């Protein structure tokens, strides 16, 4: 299950990405395209979403950032709608209320929400974009400028800097598979030939899913899918995310002094290499149950850390996550530590926190039922199902969010069996999981604090040297800077 930790003002609790309680109807067309229909008749609207696997996880140093550029180019014209103006006019004609495209680390999606009575038009609309895109030099030139405007913002964003600094060091063999944007130089140098290769290799039905949700009937969705996408030529599914990322290098410990960081607190984060969903599927179910076992701000895990005397800010600002991933899965822990005027001991306290977390995992591995209480396993499973119920309330969000994610990262079979497989997780599975992924595995760490607090505490820099922490910032965070 997808979880992420946001070290932001309202950080802490890992956000849940749910599954529908009543499963969507599902069909695979002869050309390999998977079709999902989610019926939700709350409002007379339908959302049409096309998803493709790949994105950052399929990148090479030469194509880093180009899935994102391609995503933009798909709005720039195709054989039916030759210009962006024509594309936008068509959206307007259909009465579209929301539209967008997105590129993530493992998927790209495109979607519109439109009146349900115009579902056929929406399906036809995207079919032209994905089947018959037209790439023209002038449009590519202009779109590069748009994308560069966009990614400059990310490259200056402290959250991105922190995330990239860690991941470029934790996945040293293929760091470009974790960064969506790529360097400006690759985007600026992109060619139409590269985009065509991407189209032929990834924008094919066997690497795609059509997700339709809202005021629709499944039978109608399937019939229309056949009509508009049945002639999409099939091709062999691409191979990507291979070879797998290895174990994390030992001793990755980073400190990020940031001029704009919060005053009065620092954040400490740890990462452990986790399961890849297609390689260690069973471990991903246990991981998700573990998340819910650890989630309560008044549960034993967070209470123990708060009571450890390390000056943690608040149990609601302690987060533990496992973003389900097919490429480079990892566990993520983060907490805020109170910071006085003197930050000298912040790295020692971070190391003490790491030991405290490790100690708790040691206790969990030894006897999780005793650690959490026998009844907590059932409660954790109930929480997981409840989050799924909540996630399906709004059809457009479910289709473009949860369903997009699950299909692209884990696939239809995993998705449909997910609750059953999570229900089967036992205390022994939890113990085994923690034993294999946490005990003695070593974790990477990242400390963030205000630059002036760090500079005013020379002892902090001394302890950084002693404890093996390296300073990072916007000039040495991204893989192309290393």
């Amino acid at each position: 299950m997808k979880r992420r930790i946001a070290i932001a003002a309202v950080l802490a609790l890992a956000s849940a990405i749910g599954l529908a309680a009543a499963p969507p109807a599902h069909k695979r067309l002869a050309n390999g395209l998977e079709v999902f229909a989610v019926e939700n008749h709350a409002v007379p609207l339908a959302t049409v979403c096309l998803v493709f696997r790949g994105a950052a996880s399929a990148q090479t140093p030469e194509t880093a950032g180009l899935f994102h550029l391609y995503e933009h180019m798909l709005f720039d014209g195709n054989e039916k709608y030759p210009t962006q103006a024509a594309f936008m006019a068509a959206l307007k004609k259909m009465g579209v209320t929301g539209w967008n495209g997105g590129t993530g680390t493992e998927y790209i999606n495109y979607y519109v929400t439109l009146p349900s009575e115009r579902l056929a038009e929406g399906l036809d609309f995207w079919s032209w974009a994905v089947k018959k895109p037209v790439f023209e030099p002038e449009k590519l030139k202009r779109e590069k400028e748009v994308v560069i405007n966009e990614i400059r913002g990310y490259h200056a964003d402290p959250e991105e800097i922190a995330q990239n600094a860690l991941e470029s060091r934790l996945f040293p063999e293929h760091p470009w598979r974790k960064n969506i944007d790529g360097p400006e130089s690759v985007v600026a140098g992109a060619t139409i030939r590269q985009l065509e290769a991407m189209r032929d290799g990834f924008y094919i039905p066997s690497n795609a899913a059509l997700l339709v949700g809202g005021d629709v009937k499944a039978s109608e969705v399937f019939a229309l899918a056949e009509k508009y996408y049945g002639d999409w030529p099939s091709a062999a599914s691409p191979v990507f995310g291979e070879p797998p990322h290895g174990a994390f290098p030992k001793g990755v410990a980073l400190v990020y002094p940031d001029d704009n960081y919060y005053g009065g607190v620092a954040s400490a984060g740890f990462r452990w290499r986790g399961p890849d969903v297609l390689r260690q599927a069973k471990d991903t179910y246990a991981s998700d149950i573990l998340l819910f076992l650890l989630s309560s701000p008044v549960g034993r895990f967070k209470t123990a850390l708060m009571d450890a005397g390390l000056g943690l800010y608040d149990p609601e600002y302690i987060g533990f996550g496992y973003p389900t991933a097919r490429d480079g899965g990892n566990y993520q822990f983060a907490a805020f530590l109170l910071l006085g005027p003197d930050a000298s001991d912040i790295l020692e306290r971070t190391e003490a926190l790491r030991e405290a977390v490790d100690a708790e995992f040691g206790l969990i591995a030894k006897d999780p039922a005793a650690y959490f209480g026998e009844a907590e396993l059932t409660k954790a499973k109930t929480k997981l199902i409840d989050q799924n119920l909540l996630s399906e309330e709004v059809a457009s969000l479910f289709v473009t969010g949860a369903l997009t994610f699950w299909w692209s990262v884990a696939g239809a079979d995993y998705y449909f069996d997910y609750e059953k497989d999570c229900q089967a997780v036992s205390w022994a599975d939890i113990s085994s999981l923690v034993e294999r992924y946490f005990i003695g595995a070593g974790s990477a760490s990242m400390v963030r604090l205000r630059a002036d607090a760090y500079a005013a505490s020379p002892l902090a820099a001394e302890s950084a040297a002693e404890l093996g922490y390296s300073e990072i910032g916007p000039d040495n965070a991204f893989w192309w800077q290393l």
Partner: protein
Amino acid sequence: MNARTRRYALAALAAAVLLASLASSCAGLGAAGKGSGGFPLAAMGDSFGGRGLSDFAKVNLKSFETFVLSNGIPVIVKKSDSSRVRHISLVIRGGSAASSPETAGIESLALKVMARGSALYGYEAIRGLLDETSSSLGGTSDFDASYYSLNTLDKYFDRLLPLWIDTIARPAFAQADFDKELSNAILALQSKEQDPWSKTGLSANELFFAGHPYAASPEGNAASLAAASLESVEAWYGRRLRAGNLFVVAVGGYDAASLRASLEKGLGAIPAGGEKLAKAPAIAHPGPGSLAKVEFPQSKGVGYLRGDFPAPAIDDPDYVALSIGMSIFSDLLFHVVRDKYGAVYSPMATVRSFDANYGTVALYKTSVPGKAKAYIDEAAAVLASGRGMALDPEYSADGYAPIPEILDSIKGQFVNSTYESQASNAAIAAQIARSALSTGDYRYYLLMVDRIGAATSEDIGDALRKHLFGAKLTWVALGAADVIADARSEDFAAFSGASK
């Protein structure tokens, strides 16, 4: 959903204008009700059903039940079985505008402290219960009102409702809870200061709302939060948590009779009375437009641009026409600034829906904020000529078409957006609350379809000339020094829509 997903356009901006929630021109509506059956938040009375309503409105009207608690608190229940989610909100009249810059943020702070403890529930019990049931409990404020809400699944509602009620009726107001929430509020404010787009908004608000009640921002400011105390929070609670200031909105699969009994028992003892709270006055901005440049060194190579102007409130006849006009403008900005010049990632033009309303023209992520004003002006000139983006790109050489040619399509999008803004029970509750607060009738949002349908091209042209062209926009350009260096005040002084 995924912080690491790159979107083609910033969705919140691209869709903003279409999410403008309420239509206008319900002449003669007052905030004081004399409505159907005496329900105090049904100011339009029985006539509401006799106005040639859309089918969507007719169906929705049947799903309401209303009643008044013995102490005078009105309750609106909208039955919805489309999901298992139940939402209930206590709406408290008076948002940050009823405060002052010196005490800004007190409403939000008080509501968050309430959610941490009550006579029956300590912090641990609350957090444990919320975690176990995947539920959320908490408060928020905007300029005009405050909201204390519970979102949960139907199977947990009977366990959670007593918690929601007790934290309203008998909050603990413990010093430790206050200290923690104050600290959280300070961190949240710092978070806004760290983000270049949020910082652009903070800077714009500081300038645009100077001297107006909206200068008191819902999240507070560094000085107001530093001055906040538990006593001030309790004093706010004592003043505002009076029956005369409150109403309840519940959306979900409710049994209204059962809910009424629970609310009567739990909230019926809240003291009557309440302060008379006037609506915030319209924002007035005499003099030329202005440009403030805000250096944000971290934003290397990219800048942010935003201009605000006074706009009609939702109960003004111009509101819908201006909203549609701004939507047309937004499309033009996308075409000119992004598509033609590649000068921005996401442009926007929108009208909001506050009591003292305002509109915004903005560019999110541009490497050329100085040059970009000329591109904005180019798009504005097309709009001022009575044209928008054509539905058929072959319609003309430049891709533009007269507004009457595209109006039905734009209006259709607005109608669909009203549906989209009612896709969750929490969203429906927000629409009902805003309707009741702004117009005195909780059903008003259901008239959106009719109001949009009535807008003409002439209305749109008139509204744009009256409120946008010639307006004194308060502009903020934020970015690294070299990025904003070429943004010149003289280029931003006028916003006439005249061609250059």
